[in-house]
């Protein structure tokens, strides 16, 4: 006697589990096999003063930019390694989300830009005395970069120049 094929109900229940498993397996394999660029040797800069006296900048990979002021990030071979400077007193929720990748959920940041650039949280920590001061300028990059050589070689020095000009002690990096 031949077996009955799975009922539609059974398939409907099983397919999402298969999809999840396939996604997890694929992502684990991709992480294991991908030629991640390794920092070696690892540089180390001690915090020069207590956090409560330090000036802190934020760096986001969300591709946030000021519409009408900054150029949007663009899709390009290897990725757009340019950066945008975001003033500390910007209207946070007015920033556009310019990340060129679609491999993340935009909804949290659409609802609350602090999820990419937590300026309100930084200001609260300054008010509470946990952080000395907020940098006058923060930095936004488009984190979807497949060829990171330019990011290290070109963007790194440029962003460092911005933060050093503002006498920044420490930077908090927020990916998406």
């Amino acid at each position, binding site marked *: 006697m031949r077996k009955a094929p799975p009922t539609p109900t059974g398939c409907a229940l099983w397919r999402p589990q298969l999809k999840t498993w396939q996604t997890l397996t694929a992502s684990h394999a991709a*992480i*294991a096999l991908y030629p*991640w*660029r*390794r*920092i*070696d040797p*690892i*540089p*180390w*800069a001690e*915090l*020069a003063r*207590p*956090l409560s006296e*330090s000036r*802190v900048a934020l*760096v986001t*990979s969300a591709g946030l930019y000021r519409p009408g002021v900054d150029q949007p990030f663009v899709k390009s071979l290897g990725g757009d390694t340019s950066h945008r400077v975001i003033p500390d007193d910007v209207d946070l929720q007015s920033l556009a989300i310019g990340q060129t*990748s679609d*491999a*993340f*959920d*935009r*909804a*949290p940041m659409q*609802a609350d830009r*602090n*999820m990419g650039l*937590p300026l*309100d*949280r930084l200001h*609260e*920590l300054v008010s509470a005395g*946990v*952080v000395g001061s907020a940098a006058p300028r923060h930095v936004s*990059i488009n*984190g*979807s*970069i*497949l060829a*990171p050589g330019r*990011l*290290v070689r070109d*963007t*790194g*020095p440029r*962003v*460092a120049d911005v*933060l*050093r000009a503002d006498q*920044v*002690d*420490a*930077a*908090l*990096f*927020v*990916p*998406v």
Partner: protein
Amino acid sequence: MCTQSVGLLAGALEERGITTVCIALVRRIAERVRPPRALAVPFAFGAALGRANDAACQLRVIVQALRLLSRPGPPPVLADLEA
């Protein structure tokens, strides 16, 4: 890819004397890239600080990350978000 990008850029800034800490959405990528300091979080892509419009949740992540700035080396310093 963002976890690699922020890690590499953090390394480039650290080379130039700026102390850095990264939030890492994928611990295994942070282990491979090796930024100087990173806090691994168990959140989805697009939600590195946990939940939108939840200041307490976001602060919990940020404060734990900022605490790593004062942690002694040697690098890499890679910690997990505590409950």
